[in-house]
Every structure is written in C-alpha cells, then in structure tokens.
C-alpha cells in the first residue's frame, strides 16, 4: 500500500536525521503543504462519498502517526543538544566560595552573655549603671569610708575632687538597685559592665576591665545559697566535671566574705603552672552583703539578708579560652576575633 510505503520511508529518513534543521526538512517533505502525505488529500476528489470517508480516515491516521514520529525525533534531538550544553556548563565545584564576611562578638561580651543567659533563667534581671559614678555609691555606702585602705586614692580615677570618679567596681549598681527597692522588694540582679582602676596595662593588668557582678537580697538567704549558685555558674561555664571551692576572704562590703575557686580547667586539678600547683583557680569574690551596706541602702539586716558575687569577665575568658594576655581583649585583632564567630559545643 502506498500509505504504508510512505511511513516506512519516513522512518528510514528519520534514522539519518541528526539536526533540527534536517528534521524540519524531512517534516516539510512529508507534512508540508506539498508534502507526500498532504498531497494524498488531492486524491480524495476522485473517490465516491463512501470511499472518501474511509480514505480520509486513513490519511488522518497516517498523518498523526507521522507527526508523532517527527515529534519524538525532535524531543530526542533536543535532549541530546541540552545534555551537550549542560556538559559544557559543568564547573569546578572545588573553586573557592564567595566569601561572606564573619561578624564575631567581642570575646568579653560573649563571655558575659553566657553568664547572663544562665542567670536570667534563674530569675536574675540584667541591669546597668553609670560608669561615671559618685564616690557615695562607689565607696561610701559600700562600707568603704574615706580613708579606708582599700580605696587608696591611687587605685581610682577621680574626675572631680573626691566626689566623682570612674567607677572602680560594678558594686555601686548594687547600692542603686537596693535604694530603688526601698527596703521592701526582694532583689535578684546581675550588672555586668566596665570598671576602671589606675593600673598600667600589661599582660595581667588593665586600667579598664569588666566585672560580672550579682546581688540577691531576700529573706532567708545564706552563704550556702551563694555556694550553690556559684556551683551552677561554674558548671555552666566550665563543664559538669568542674569542681568548686570556697575560701574565706575579706571584702569591706561583704561579711562573711569568700573567694570562689574552680578546679583548674587546664590540668583538671592535678596541678600545673596556671594554677600555681594548687589545682584551683580563683575566679570570683563575694559573700553575704554586709549588714552596714544593707542598712545604708534601706534594708533591715534583721529581716533581710543577701549575697553578692563578682567575676572578672577577662579572667573567665582567659581561663575558658586559654588566653594569656589581658591586652588581647582591647587590641581587637580581627584575625583573633574570627574564631569566636560560631556557636559553642553546648
């Protein structure tokens, strides 16, 4: 049959087709206006109505079949072209990435935030106080009257006479906070911040440094509560296996006063250079708020008691991250900052 012959030829022709151009030529040859299949319609005129119908059906069928064959071939060629294109677009995925700059926190701020987050969960508010402070709050009301050896004028940056100074500790915030509490409200707060003392800057001293100070005033607060609170902080910062130790100490604004030690992070308590072979490192000072201080700030020491503690942020960071020069925190060498731009283990 003529029609079957046409399809057979078409298939044969398609086999040799390689490009879309060739394909459209083949398509025109069979399905174009004067194409082999199209021209079959002209033969219909010679047929009777009955035969017209069946012949027309046959042509349509052949036409559809031919279209499918051509379309399939088209898809085949296109896929091949695309694949070749993609092959050429292949890249060296090991080439360097576009650098998205890091944004690291200050080591000290990171350290402080670490403590803040823990203590907030324990009900402590985080508050702030002025760095330019009155002598009254920085010393006087903290049981450090004028002439007290601990406030030797050499240690403090006075601004105006003996009344205004750059605070030498964060403790004045305790006073301000208690005065706001008016002897009635229980207090739980920490007040991390900058402090200033007349020290020459070297590996272990800095005229500017940061303290993380805390105060809790309530009924029935004991030194054992401070010990427990310190334990929680120490373990949070230095891991569950961190051991703590209290030693008696002396501060004018606490009584009893303690120094708080942690087992040496470096040697795990075995004894090394860092802990001077004692196995322990002192990280904080504190104690029970001195009754005179409570009284000065309007809290009746017969009814209220409280504990206060203070960490040195630099010292904590030095121990935690193995930094051995205080100046690192204020030099801000971005090559050193970089490693702090990430989350930590826990």
């Amino acid at each position: 049959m003529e029609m079957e012959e046409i399809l057979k030829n078409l298939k044969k022709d398609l086999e040799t087709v390689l490009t879309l151009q060739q394909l459209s030529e083949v398509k025109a040859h069979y399905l174009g206006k004067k194409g082999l299949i199209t021209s079959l319609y002209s033969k219909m005129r010679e047929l009777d109505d009955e035969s017209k119908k069946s012949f027309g059906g046959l042509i349509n069928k052949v036409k559809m079949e031919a279209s499918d064959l051509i379309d399939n071939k088209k898809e085949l060629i296109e896929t091949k072209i695309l694949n070749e294109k993609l092959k050429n677009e292949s890249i060296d995925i090991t080439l360097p990435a576009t650098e998205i700059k890091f944004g690291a926190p200050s080591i000290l701020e990171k350290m402080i935030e670490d403590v803040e987050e823990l203590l907030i969960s324990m009900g402590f508010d985080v508050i702030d106080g002025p760095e330019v402070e009155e002598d009254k709050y920085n010393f006087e009301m903290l049981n450090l009257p004028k002439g007290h050896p601990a406030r030797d004028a050499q240690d403090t940056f006075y601004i105006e006479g003996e009344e205004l100074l750059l605070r030498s500790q964060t403790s004045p915030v305790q006073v301000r906070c208690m005065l706001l509490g008016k002897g009635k409200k229980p207090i739980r707060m920490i007040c991390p911040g900058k402090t200033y003392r007349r020290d020459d800057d070297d590996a272990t001293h800095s005229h500017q440094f940061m303290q993380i100070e805390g105060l809790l005033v309530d009924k029935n607060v004991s030194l054992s509560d401070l010990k427990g609170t310190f334990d929680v902080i120490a373990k949070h910062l230095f891991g569950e296996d961190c051991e703590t130790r209290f030693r008696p100490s002396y501060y004018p604004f606490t009584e009893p006063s303690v120094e708080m030690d942690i087992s040496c992070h470096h040697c795990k308590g075995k004894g090394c250079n860092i802990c001077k072979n004692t196995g322990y490192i002192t990280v904080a000072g504190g104690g029970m708020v001195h009754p005179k201080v409570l009284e000065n700030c309007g809290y009746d020491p017969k009814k209220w008691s409280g504990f206060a503690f203070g960490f040195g942020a630099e010292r904590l960071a030095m121990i935690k991250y193995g930094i051995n020069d205080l100046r690192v925190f204020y030099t801000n060498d971005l090559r050193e900052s970089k490693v702090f731009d990430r989350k930590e283990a826990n």
Partner: protein
Amino acid sequence: MIDLEWVKDYIDISDQDLKELAVKITKAGINIEKVITNHIDNLVIGEVLECEMHPDSDHLHVCQVDVGNQNLQIVCGAFNVRKGLKVIVALPGAVLPGNFEIKKSKIRGVESNGMLCALYELGLEEKNDETYSKGIYEVSSKAKVGMDAMKCLNLDDTLYELDIHKHRNNDCYYHIGFAYEIGAILNRPVVLPDDKTSPIKDNINDHFSLKVETDKCPYYLAKMVTGVKIGESPEFIKRRLTAYGMRSINNVVDISNYVMLEYGQPLHFFDKDVLGDKILVRDAADGEEIVTLDGKIRILSNDDIVITDGKKPVCLAGVMGGENTEVTADTKSILIESAIFDGVSIRNTANRLDLRSEASIRYGKGLSYEYTLKAIERACHLLEKYAGATVLSGTVMHDKINKKVKKVDFKSFEINKLLGIVISDEDVKVELNRLGFPFEYNNGEFEVIIPPRRLDIDPYVNDIAEEVGRLYGYHNLKSTLPNEAIKKGEYASDIKYRKIISKRLRSLGLNEVKSYTLVSPSMADSFKYEDKKQIVLPKPMSIDKSVIRTSLISSLFKVYEYNHDHKVSDVLIYEISKTYDANYNEESKIAILMSGNYMSNQWHALNIPVDFYLVKGIVQNVLDYLGFNNRYTFEKAEISDLHPGICAKIMLDGKMIGIIGKVHPSFCKDDVFVAELSLEALMGKVKPIKFKEALKYPEIIKDMAFTCEKNITSDIVMNAIKKAGGRLLTNVRLFDVYEGDNVGVNEKSLAYSLTFSSPSKTLNESEVMEVFNNIIYKVEKELGVKLRNK
C-alpha cells in the same frame, strides 16, 4: 613573711607538718602563697682530719675530712680551716642558694669532693666584708660528725609568704598575731614572750616631759633606758631578722625591729642624750624640713605628723626617724617610743614622700593599741638582757585612745541562718574559745567581746558568723539554691536594645570590638560632630588616657589602624558603648567603621567594595529593623575629619541622631567609612507589625528621567515625584545616575522607575498615563528640571 621557727616561741607546733599546716591555715582564711624552707640536702657535719697546703697555691688547703661514713679529700680556701676543726660540709649533689650545685672536681690539679661552708654561702647570713672575713663556719666541737648539718645546728627554718587582703592584715602579719591564728585553728594556747625587767627607782617622769598637740596621735608611750652597750645582736635575733629579709645593724636597732615583728607595733629609739628632755608631737608646718635616717632631706606638709624636741622635728612620725637623734655607736641612753598614729595620715605622708617603711606600712593599715605597751616592755626586757641596759621606772604617756570594748549579742540561729548550717550553742562556745574571744552565755544568748587586736571585726553577728564559719570550714558548707524565683529574669530595656542592635550588626557581617573609654586629647578632638564639652581627668595616668570620649569613632579608627598595619585588608567593625560629656550626661553610642571589601571572590571577579552607599545600607538596615522606615533621612553635612563631599547627618523624625561619612583623605589616605548613632535616640516607640497582602491586580511600571543641575539631590526629585504621584503611584526607584557627554557640563540625569497599581482593580493605560504626565508636569514646574528625551 612569717618565720615558723620563730612562731614556735609562742605556740607549740613541734608536732605539725608545716606544709599541711599551711593548707589548714589557707582553708581558714589566711592565704599562704608560698611555703619556703631553707633546708639543703647533702649538708653534713664533718671533722678536718688533715690539713695541708695545696702544692700549687699559696692560700688553698687540701683537707681530709671525716663526714661520718667516709673520709673525703676537699680543697678549701678559707684562712681558718685547720686540723681538728668541725665544719659544715656540702657533699657532691648539694645545691646551695643561687642554684649552685656542688660536684666532684679538680682544683688546680687536686681532686676535691665537696665544699666546706661559710654561713653566707648557705643563705643564712648576708654576704658582706664582715661575714666574708670570718671564713668558714666553725661548728661547736660537740657536734656529731655525719649528722645533717642544718638540723644539728638548729638552722632549719620554714617561712610562710602570706597574701592577706588589705582589710585583715595587721593582726596576723606579725608573729604573735599569727600564733593566735594557728591557736584558733589547732585549738592551742598562745604564750606571750617574757617582758619582765628590773627597773631602777629613777623615774622617767622626772627626766622627761611629753606634750601631744595633734589629734592624729591618740596614744603615745615612752620609756627610758640608760647605760646601753652597743654591740652585736645575739645569734637568734640576727638569724630571724636575716630570714625575714632585714639586715642586722647592732643589738639595739635590731631589738626595735625584732619587737615590731613580734608584736606588730613599730617602735622608735631616740638617742636620749641628743634629744634632750622634752617631746612634742604636733602637725608639721608646711615647708618644714627634716633629714631622715636615710640621709635625705624631706620637705613636710601640714598633713604630716612630726615628733619634735620642742622645737625642731626629730622624727617623721610613723614613717622614719630623724638623722639628728639616731642611735649611734656612742649612744648610752635611749628613749623608746611606742605610739598609735592616724593611719590615713601616715599612708598619705608615705605615699607623698614615696617612703614606704615597715612602720608606715603597719600604721597605714590601721593598728590596734593592744600591744603598744606590751611592745615597749618587751623591748626594755631585751635591752636589759642583750644590751646591758638599765631600765628607768615609769612610763611617759599620752592616752586619748578609744578603748571602748566592741561587743556583739546574738543567738546561734542567726549564725546558722547566715551560713546555711546547723551548729549548736555548745559548738559556738567551742569556736569562740578557740578564737580566744571572751563571751558570756545566758539562756541561748551570747555576748561576745572582740579582742582589740582584731581591728578587722565589727560588732555585727555577720562578723562572728565569718569567724565561726571559717573555722567550721567553708568546704563543709552545703551547696543550696536560693528560694525559687517568683518571676523570670529579664534584660533592662537599654541593654535589650544594645543586644538587639549588636546581633543585627553581627549578622550583617560586622565584628564587635571593645576599646578604651579613656582616650588621648587628639583622639578626643577627632571626628567631633557634636557641641559637647569633654571630661578631662585632673590626674590621668598618662596623656594618652586622659579624656573621657564623647564619640567612639576615633577608637574604632585606632582598631582599624592596628588591623590595617597587620595586613587585615577588610575591616568591618562596630562598638556600642557609653559616653559621657562634661555635664555628666550619659549617651550610649553605636559606632561603625568599614573598609575594604564587603563581599568578594577574586577568581570570580566578584567584588563589593565598601563605599558610602554600602554603609548607608547598613545603617538603613538597622533603622528599618528597629521599625523606623520612612521616618529617617540623610542630610548633607560637613564634619571635621570627614570628606566634605561624602558626609551626612542622619535624621530621625527631623532630629539629628548620628552621622555617616568617609574619613577625610588628609586624615587617612585609604577609603575608610564611618557612622555613629545615638542608641538612646533609637529606643523610641514604633508601630506594631501588620500583615500586608500582596497585590492581586497587575502593576504597571514606567520609567522617566530628568536632567537637572548637579546640586539637586536625588531625594528632592524623588520626593517631588512621590508628592505628584498620588495614591496610584506605589513605588519609586532610582535606577540610573548619569553625568557626561549627553548632558550639560553642570548637569546630571536621574532616571526613575515608577510602579503604579491599585488594590481594587486592574489599571488601564490611559489612567496611568494621566498620572504619569501629571508627575512630569509638576516635577518640571516645581524643581525647574527637564524630562530627558530618549
């Protein structure tokens, strides 16, 4: 420094391991930093059996020495070595002070197996001409050959180096005070040293008058001795002073130092015959002079206290004696002073004159009157015994000191509550006895008397709790937590803002830095954009830290310089800190410094260098984040040290809140951009967030460009377009700025893309064109600019 061999005079600690004792004491509150022992291994008693001259030397001897288990040949250069002498032998392996190890050796060809020692070579005496001239130490003939030399000669000693807080220093920084501390820990009694004398009838009050004209000397005692024979101190005094680090001068001077180290009470000895018969204690006159014992002229001020002979100063009270009445080899009679002076005054004097003596340190920390009299009696006793002195009866005295007894009333439960422990009344009694605190107990109530020597204890139950607690042992405290919190903690609002902004800037790729509040005057003067007076410290430590900054920009610039010098090419930093002006107004500032590339990938030819618009973008991002969109503008400004053409004020609700700009090329030749904002200004209220639905109807976008004079800013044109656009104009975006051949010399072209849309319908072309043309008409008319033809 505490000498334990010395402490043994007052308390029995012969059974104690001194290293363990140091741990106990440290646990109880007195921090012993170091336990120092002077023991040297391989040091034995030997006897010289033979002693011949070295064949090759005119001063060396070759000795055969019996060291107990063997005989050794030792070469010795001392002049006094001789046959039959018992000596201290350092055997090979001994390490002498100065890390000097004794080894077998050959000295000028002769074998030598050790060293015969002088005391100074063992660190037991100072090395000087006198001790050197004594040669090797001659051991008593009774000493047993082969024994450990230090032990045999009783030279073994242990020293504690203390680190005591300022607050509690004096009561345990002398040997008797320290003995009390050990007594409390070990529960053992303290025995005070012998201070008996046999005074003659002659009374000091017949020879001497005392007047005190200052209230800075509440207590002044004096006693007198005659017939003093100046000479060498007894061995034990010399050794103890040497161990403490003091030089032995003579028997009399040594006794004054010795008693001070015993009782903590400084004494001063005057040559009575030079001094005369009168003492007047008064405030110094401004400009008055005294030559102190060290031979230096000291110019005094009215704050100082002086001891005078009625006219001229003879002693700078509590600090140092005067040269004019110094005890000399010819001294026969001595006036002994034991007094209490005002600690603050002494401290100030010592600091001002930079003259810190053993006495001034002790006075400066505050001194109790408890041993003022005891010390003077003890000194008389020792002078009588070791300097042949005759003691006059009576004491000259000025006594205005407050001797009011400090008492504390309390019940045991108060201590238990403070410490979080449970101890009984009986236990409290035991602790008080150990401490040596007298008390009365009545029906559960304690009344405790605080010994005057414990100046550090105030009459509060807390102070008693501390004493009881440290003996109870803080290591025995339980760890408990305070009662449950009734609310969760939170950040104060200013801190919260600081944290929010800080986190935002970090996520935008900036690094937080921390710099100093105190800056140099030149830093304080740089980048000044506010009319603020600055606080200048009256007494700075150094000029480069003398001003409290009002802006953080110069500090950031310093950080930039450091990093730039260290080849960090991209510096993207910020700091948020408080600043203070001369009126003590506090203002927290957010400062930003950016330089280098914000993003880059070199091989990929991708480079986003920091420029003004990038920093502007950072600032806008923060402001938008805080909810201030549409409320801020940037206004051109000129600020010192910033590029005059690349610099702006940042305005929020019409008020200036900060600045932004490029660092002036004459300040820094690299492209560095800075910005600073007031944190307080950003804590204002913002609208709550509201959901905004995306448009349902298509937008129509049309472009227009204007040519205008260069000085017309984009904002002006943008605002004119917005004003003319009305409701249907929903967005305007600048997409091109052109200057060059196609526009006039002083002109530029600004091209904008305008978006039109309606929330309620699809706009048709003619509606939009009407608005579009109206915009062109109005903007041209209002600004005198021209639509640019395509």
